């Protein structure tokens, strides 16, 4: 920042030739000289400018130099301006000037000695420059201090956010590993049991009629673990806005039939059955893998929380929109929880009791539906099951996760 060190000098004298002579003596680079031919004129200039020094002729018609000086001392704005009185030696010394304590005062005697004039003026101008520079530095320091303070505040805020993010990540890791350990436990116990059976020659445990159930049990645990890991990765992608869809022509009806078929054993294990009502085909442009994930998530939830009662999935098309509903007859969802269940890591107390999980399935489902330009809604009452309703435009407009961020 450049420092404005121009010094303004005020000279007041009723005689124009004196003003000219004085100006010639004191002007110089970095100085601006203002001339006033009366005290009144001087007062007007004092209102508009900040002067480094005022040189006042004492002998003036009307208001004299001392009276002008006293007026200057009486006003805060001009109180501290150094004053040099120009006076005829010995003539005005009996005037008691009342204002020495407020600011510097000096005298020049007529006839003016050019060396004395320039010498005194230089002292005051230098003083003014130094003071101005000092004030400038102090202002700069204050600004710097304030900036630093703001920076510290910002850093504190960022630190808080980082600490929170690290804590969330730790909690997430802890939760993921806890959830993975449940299916892993079943699988590990199963292998330990087989190890004992083999070592004891109890091969009847591996009889042909017992194998399918054994395989299904293992596969269920493995599917659980794969799903947990997939969900975890999807959520990480969503955080980076890196979850995208690749829409291609798909037959939703065929996809739904395949998903239902794939979940047949899981449904049996839950003591339930999935009924699918769908047209022969329902063609649209969607990301097949992601829509399969949506169907699987909704059906898996319906099996988990459906209390072993039948689950019903319906598909239809109307006005360029595909509709999917999944209905169960299980524990249902309280009204106050119906929005929350779509948020990440949110699980209702009821759902926690019924099945393990990270609370990511519906969060991911809604995100995928959103990426397809569609929407998902839930209708439910506690104890009366739940109906999830998905609407998908037949032509998915490819969007990035950022655009559908709620």
């Amino acid at each position: 920042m450049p420092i404005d060190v121009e010094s303004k000098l005020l000279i007041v004298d009723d005689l124009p030739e004196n003003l000219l002579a004085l100006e010639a003596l004191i002007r110089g680079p970095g100085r601006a000289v203002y001339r006033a031919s009366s005290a009144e004129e001087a007062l007007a200039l004092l209102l508009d400018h900040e002067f480094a020094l005022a040189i006042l002729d004492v002998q003036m018609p009307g208001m004299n130099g001392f009276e002008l000086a006293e007026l200057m001392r009486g006003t805060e704005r001009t109180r501290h301006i150094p004053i040099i009185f120009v006076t005829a030696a010995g003539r005005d010394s009996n005037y008691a000037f009342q204002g020495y304590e407020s600011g510097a005062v000096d005298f020049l005697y007529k006839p003016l000695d050019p060396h004395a004039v320039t010498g005194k003026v230089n002292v005051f101008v230098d003083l003014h420059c130094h003071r101005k520079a000092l004030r400038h530095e102090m202002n700069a320091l204050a600004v710097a201090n304030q900036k630093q303070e703001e920076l510290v505040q910002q850093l504190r805020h960022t630190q808080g956010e980082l600490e929170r993010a690290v804590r969330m990540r730790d909690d997430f890791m802890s939760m993921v590993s806890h959830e993975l350990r449940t299916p892993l436990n079943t699988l590990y116990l199963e292998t330990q049991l087989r190890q004992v059976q083999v070592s004891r020659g109890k091969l009847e445990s591996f009889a042909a009629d017992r194998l399918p159930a054994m395989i299904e049990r293992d596969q269920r645990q493995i599917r659980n673990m794969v799903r947990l890991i997939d969900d975890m990765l999807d959520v990480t992608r969503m955080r980076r806005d890196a979850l995208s869809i690749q829409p291609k022509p798909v037959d939703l009806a065929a996809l739904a039939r395949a998903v239902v078929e794939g979940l047949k054993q899981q449904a049996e294990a839950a003591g339930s059955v999935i009924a699918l009502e769908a047209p022969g085909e329902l063609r649209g442009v969607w990301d097949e893998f992601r829509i399969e994930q949506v169907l699987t998530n909704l059906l898996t939830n319906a099996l988990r929380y459906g209390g072993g009662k039948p689950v019903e999935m319906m598909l239809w098309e109307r006005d360029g929109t595909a509709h999917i509903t999944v209905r169960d007859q299980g524990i249902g969802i309280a009204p106050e929880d119906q929005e929350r269940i779509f948020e990440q890591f949110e699980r209702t107390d009821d759902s926690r009791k019924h099945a393990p999980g990270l609370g990511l399935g519906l969060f991911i489902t809604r995100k995928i539906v959103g990426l397809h330009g569609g929407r998902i809604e839930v209708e439910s009452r506690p104890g009366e099951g739940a109906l999830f309703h998905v609407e998908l435009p037949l032509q998915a407009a490819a969007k990035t996760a950022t655009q559908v961020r709620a």
Partner: protein
Amino acid sequence: MLESLLPVNVLIVDDNEAAADLLQELLTLQDHTARCTYTAQQAMDAAAEERFDAALIDLTLPDFPGTEVARRLRSAAAGRGPRLLVAISGFSEEEAAGGAAAQNLFDHHLQKPIDMGELTAILSGPR
């Protein structure tokens, strides 16, 4: 893990039914006896009917926490309860809910997946 020492009667509480059943089968193969329960209430009922030497208690149960099961087994039975209380959890002992309270209630903490060698060592530990 095959050596079964003195047979013990074990109460298992885990809402993961497959895991509970497998534990029962494994313990039976080691000549222990075991009874499976899947909720805290079932466990309390079983403890009222039968005397157990040890209880394996999952900390996350659908009706109330495993720590509560342990507390009731410790206090109500006045010497008639299981000698050995073992917590089972997906969390480590430090992370598990209940923290210090759980540490005082249980004799051991087993983190899933459960290693039968470890469990056998606990069950055959000093009486």
